[in-house]
């Protein structure tokens, strides 16, 4: 586990101030660890330079897995393992398999996406999130900067954040 990490934490009152602060801080060459906000801030992802999530690709692959599993299962069961005549149809006829195939596609895509998301964002039982400032769940926006990934000193960073409109700047060690 990544222990003994030192963070500088800037508190912002207003999302517009925060957005500009994020842009300017990144222009100055600072790497921002993460920004926490009580509600989604429009344009924050772009300002932080986040790439688009690759979750849809995972969803597509899981969905395809579901499609093929469902088709294989039904064709094997009704076509080979235990052939039955239902309503005078062929043993392995496609149309009645479509609803089950659709459901399996959706099920595996959904479960796969949830699982992928949990793994990708390192969420697991008994893993508690780092709380940089409890007020980010209420009315404050919180910008966390990891000292280890930046060359600037603690004082320089706090001065920069203050100049960008942070109402207060704290330190947080984990």
């Amino acid at each position, binding site marked *: 586990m990544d222990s003994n990490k030192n963070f500088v934490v800037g508190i912002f009152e207003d999302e517009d101030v925060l957005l500009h602060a994020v842009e300017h801080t990144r222009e100055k060459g600072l790497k921002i660890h993460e920004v926490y906000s009580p509600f989604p801030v*429009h*344009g924050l992802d772009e300002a932080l330079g986040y790439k*688009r999530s690759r979750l849809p690709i995972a969803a597509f692959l899981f969905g395809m897995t579901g499609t093929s599993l469902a088709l294989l299962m039904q064709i094997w069961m009704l076509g080979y393992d235990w052939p039955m005549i239902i*309503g*005078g149809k062929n043993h392995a006829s496609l*149309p*009645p398999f479509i*609803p089950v195939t659709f459901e399996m596609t959706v099920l595996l895509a959904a479960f796969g996406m949830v699982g992928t998301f949990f793994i990708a964002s390192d969420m697991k039982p008994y893993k508690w999130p780092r709380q940089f400032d409890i007020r980010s769940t209420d009315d404050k926006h919180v910008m966390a900067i990891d000292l280890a990934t930046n060359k600037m000193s603690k004082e320089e960073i706090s001065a920069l954040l203050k100049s960008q409109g942070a109402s207060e700047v704290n330190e947080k060690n984990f």
Partner: protein
Amino acid sequence: MIADEKYIFKPATKQKLFILIGVGLLLFAVGVFMAKNGGHHEGAEKHASQEIAKSLVASTEPTEHAASAVEGGHHGSATWLKRIYTSLWHNNIFFAGIGIIGLFFVAIQYAAQAGWSAPIKRIPLAMGSWIPFAGILMVGLWFLVKGDLFHWTDHSLYDVKNEHYDAILMGKSAYFFWPMHAGSFPLFFVVRMVLFFSLWYLFFTWIKKEMLAEDINGGTNHWFASRKLSAYFLVIFAVSSSVSAWDWVMSIDPHWFSTMFGWYVFASWWVTGLATITLLVANLKGAGYLKVVTQNHIHDLGKFVFAFSIFWTYIWFCQFMLIYYANLPEETVYFIQRMRTAPYSWIFYANIFLNFVLPFLLLMTRDAKRQISMLKVVCPIVIIGHWFDFYNMITPGAMKLEGGVGFLEIGLAMVFAGAFLYVVLNALSKLQLVAKNHPFMQESLNHHI
């Protein structure tokens, strides 16, 4: 806030449309000539498949006139004339639908209080200008084609003493002929047709009036008035779209019925209309108009085409699956005619490929929906695919085994497309291309997804 922007209907564009109509007429003439003179040169293969289909249908047809129901052409007009009638009816239903969907799209945007669509709403509004032309054509054509397309108009079916007496159609006769005698003038049917087009046209003019008045007066009153009108229109459209689908399309196969049919026709119209709106927006943007429309609006239109292609497939499958599984002869006859016989089976499968597989795969990613170049590929596929969808609904029932897709059908489709585009672009050139005082315009300009 919004600069004056007007679409200029250039003589060059008009010329292109006239060339489209001219080439269409030429192909149509060639097609008629071929159908008239080359009708009896079919190979033995087609003959064999006709025999198979005849026996299949004979085993399922509830009436005793199964063989004549398949052959069809023994009464009524010559095959080539019947083909013209069928194709006229098919194209008019198809383009009438696109026009009505223009108005329906506008009404949906008001009822849902949608903000994103504010700058593009004039394009579907202009599409609504086709409604009166479609209505006049529909009523006129109906009297021309009724004897050949609509088997139920034959008065001998309702005469108990006649050998053609049909108990099933007698049971349905009130739906067509009320309050007249069964077999006389189908008053209820014709009144419905006239009433629906009148109502659609009335609501089109009312909503258009409010939208144009907003350009001059501003404020929110016109928006609220439009929303109110839209809500009334949507209730009327919910009923009239279903009933018109039964009347104009499903009654071509009068013995057969499907409870999904109203939805099926609506879904087909709706996705075609969405593809047409998207294609017009894409082309206008390509020509330098609609500067306020960004990639985010294009993305929303792309999502619409993608989502409702799937919706159409869902309805298609619901209808097919229930009939396939229940396996009732009087229902499966519809699909046997379309899946198992030579002139239509390729269209039946192409229908699913063009309208589901291609749009589903091509528009799946986010980037594809945001690319105008990709939408310019997918939207024509969807439009042509649904033209075949309507062909598949109408022609096998009307032409039995004598139908086909040739110069005749393609030529008429080109004539209709040219006329439709001329009316729509002409109407568009008379409007402000982008609404000037739309209350949601600022929201739409900042639209970001």
